[in-house]
């Protein structure tokens, strides 16, 4: 053996411990995962703060400003919730698929297809603009659900029948979906050459809080729409499905060990297609809710990447639908606050750092990190 380097010796004298990483051999305590996630979140904010300081901002002031911009008054809170709505539904879509370890990266495309299918109800038209609101919205929601589900079914079938990697197919199908949408807004449904469809008739608008301003004056100008309720109900149902139903048990088992699932008599192929369809359907519902509740027409820029944010949200929520709801509000806030501060990329940057810290923090749940005292010779 070569002589140990003196620098290493000095280091050892100053810090007579060795970091030892051991695999955990028992269940982690229940309180640990949320604590680790929270710690990762705090760490991400600190790292973001360092970046803010580096570009000459005051981190604390910036964060405060961002918080005010997202939660400061009823108006912005409502806007935050509006932004959170599609994220919530996309987060649920990803949570469901990820539970079965189906990496659906295509919520974005499914979102667009859902929006497109819902628009088709109005623009084709399937129903006349004079149809009752309730019927119109129901038809649009069904269309959005089916549109997204069919878009999700393609990668699901390819995975189940031919074992095609769903990461690639779902990702690629995003581009097809966006181009498909563009074709319609540029050509078929274009309003006088503009890259957008005509505005939907009022019957296709989801009710907003502002619509009830006459009865409840504080609601004046509030943009939060029915989509939020849909999202919350979906979260509750999905929680029951994943944690309480037999199908949810099958999904969990298949996600953990598909061979054991097959051995236990579960039709893994069928579940793959079904989960991809339901996941796509939820993302499609997000698309429907966005055009019906916010945009009121089909256009190109209906999503600043909600489908991709959904991935982060699902992960942050540890794939628990009930946790997806608050996390999406946090991310809605980040999007909203991003408009308020310069450079506006800071919000995106924070999102990235949060995901990074969060995924890294998983190590703490699998391994125990200990400092072992090094014996001095």
């Amino acid at each position: 053996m070569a002589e140990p380097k003196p620098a290493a010796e000095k280091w050892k004298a100053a810090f007579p411990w060795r970091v030892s990483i051991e695999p955990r051999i028992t269940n982690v305590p229940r309180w640990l995962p949320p604590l680790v996630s929270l710690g990762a979140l705090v760490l991400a904010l600190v790292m973001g703060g360092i970046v803010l300081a580096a570009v000459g901002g005051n981190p604390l002031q910036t964060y405060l400003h961002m918080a005010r911009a997202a939660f400061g008054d009823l108006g912005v809170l409502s806007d935050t919730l509006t932004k959170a709505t599609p994220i919530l539904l996309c987060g649920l879509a990803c949570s469901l698929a990820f539970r079965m370890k189906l990496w659906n990266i295509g919520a974005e495309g499914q979102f667009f297809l859902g929006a497109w299918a819902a628009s088709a109800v109005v623009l084709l038209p399937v129903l006349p603009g004079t149809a009752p609101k309730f019927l119109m919205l129901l038809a649009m929601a069904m269309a959005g659900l089916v549109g997204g589900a069919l878009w999700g079914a393609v990668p699901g079938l390819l995975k189940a029948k031919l074992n095609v990697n769903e990461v690639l197919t779902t990702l690629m199908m995003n581009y097809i979906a966006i181009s498909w949408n563009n074709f319609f807004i540029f050509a078929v449904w274009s309003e006088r050459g503009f890259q957008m469809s005509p505005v939907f008739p009022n019957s296709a608008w989801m009710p907003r809080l502002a619509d009830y301003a006459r009865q409840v004056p504080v609601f004046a100008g509030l943009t939060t729409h029915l989509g939020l309720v849909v999202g919350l109900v979906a979260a509750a149902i999905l929680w029951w499905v994943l944690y309480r139903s037999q199908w949810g048990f099958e999904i969990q088992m298949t996600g953990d060990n598909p061979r054991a699932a097959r051995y236990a008599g579960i039709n893994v192929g069928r579940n793959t297609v079904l989960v991809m369809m339901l996941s796509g359907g939820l993302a499609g519902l997000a698309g429907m809710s966005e055009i019906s509740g916010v945009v009121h027409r089909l256009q190109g820029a209906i999503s600043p990447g909600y489908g991709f944010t959904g991935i982060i949200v699902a992960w942050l929520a540890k794939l628990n639908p009930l946790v997806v709801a608050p996390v999406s509000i946090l991310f809605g806030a980040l999007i909203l606050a991003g408009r308020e501060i310069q450079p506006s990329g800071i919000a995106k940057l924070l999102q990235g750092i949060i995901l990074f810290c969060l995924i890294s923090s998983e190590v703490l749940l699998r391994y125990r990190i200990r400092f072992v005292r090094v014996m001095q010779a």
Partner: protein
Amino acid sequence: MPEATHAVEMRGIVMRFPGVLANDHVDFDLRVGEIHALLGENGAGKSTLMNVLAGMYRPESGTIRVRDQAVELRSPRDAIGRGIGMIHQQFMLVPSQTVTENILLGLDEPRFRLRLPHYEGRVAQLAREFGLHVDPHCKVWQLSVGEQQRVEILKMLYRGANILIMDEPTAVLAPQEIDDLFGILRGMVAEGKSIVFISHKLGEVMQIADRITVLRKGQVTAAGLSPSDTSPMEMARLMVGRAVQFRADKEPQPPGDVVLSVEGVSALNDKGLPALREISLRVHAGEILGIAGVAGNGQPELAEVITGLRKCTAGRVLLRGQVISNRPPRVAIERGVGHIPEDRREVGTAPNLSITDNLNLKAYRKHPIAKGSSVDHPRAARHAAALKTQYEIMAPSVGTAVRFLSGGNLQRVILAREISEGPGLMIAMQPTRGLDVGAIEGVQRLLLDLRRSGTAVLLVSEELDEIVCLSDRVAVIYEGQIVGEMAGDLCDDERDRIGLMMTGQFKSSTGPTAELPDLPEQCGKDKGRLGRA
């Protein structure tokens, strides 16, 4: 310096894995220019011993001398530096690269510029020298298995190996390729190389080896025998042992109706090659049918066809007269087929799920655990807690993820689940493999309890002792066929015959039977009792 006569001398090698003594003071020596066969059942410690020599494992104690020099082999790199190269059963090749690229992979030269043509020339020359016909600029995925094996040999020769360890080299080869390989091996020995040939196929060993060392349960039972001084029967006995190690408490019991009948079933393995060839067997209620055989002769495929996990290409499987083959796995489960899979962690359990979830892996969809379309979680947990106590599963709680359990406890989880389903037929695959003595006894007791309760049991095990002591009848599987069947409680001569059948030396229909002495009639017990149905 005088020429060393021994290429390798290993003395008193002890190698221990958790719960297993894989090598128990093993001595082994390899002479220069010989083919030395290492013979033994699966798990006898052959590969472990050779992995020690190849620098993969470091033994607990023992010494290794290479060409009369004491050495310490810390890594495969150390070993190859001493001229020792091992060719593993699983080839370690990059399919998308050429033969030459594969051979150069991991070497210090070439450093930066590949200069492939130059090296291709060298590889081609080396190949010519040893008669290893393979095109140096072919991509590996285009090669047959036999050619890939030659690439592996070339890889070792290129690195300057003169001691070659071949781990079951014939397992993957077709008969013609085996002849070619033997030719190559003889050629290499003529060039002064020394070869260790690991195998459990008796015929091949007798054919190729200059000397034979037999391992059984980590100990040497015969060292450096010459094939001419011994007989296949003798070898088989040394391999599978003679004395029954333990006796199960098994009362005689008349078999009931036929529960399982496998009729002329053929099936392919994962590689698309025939794994089962028109296999037929029957298991009665309250009877244990033991399937003896060396691994890789179609046992897992047989279990998978019966449980619906694998399609059969011919024949059918009947459970109490109803067809269950080529139907979804759930059909077999619902008709009462229990299955203790060979691979506990990869197939039998979901590692990150709790003991509760794993115990309810099949019961979740049935009354009373199922409630409408939901799972009654409190009831599932109570059910699990009861099973945990009954089957003595050692764990802090039923909420513990099963990946934290030891092999024995994991097996108890699987047994508890499969037995509590009240199966009419139990397919038990290697139920005691890798378990410690206490756990083994527990598992065997449970299998005998099943028999007593009238369940038909199909027991597949590589432990001949276990099969002999538990089974009412024993069938021997070799290359996807049942080559013989006899009643349990075998006498020693029958044991020998089973050993021969397992190694492909004796087929009741086609094999060379002449070398076997006739078995005396009086041996064994009351054969009529449990004879062929």
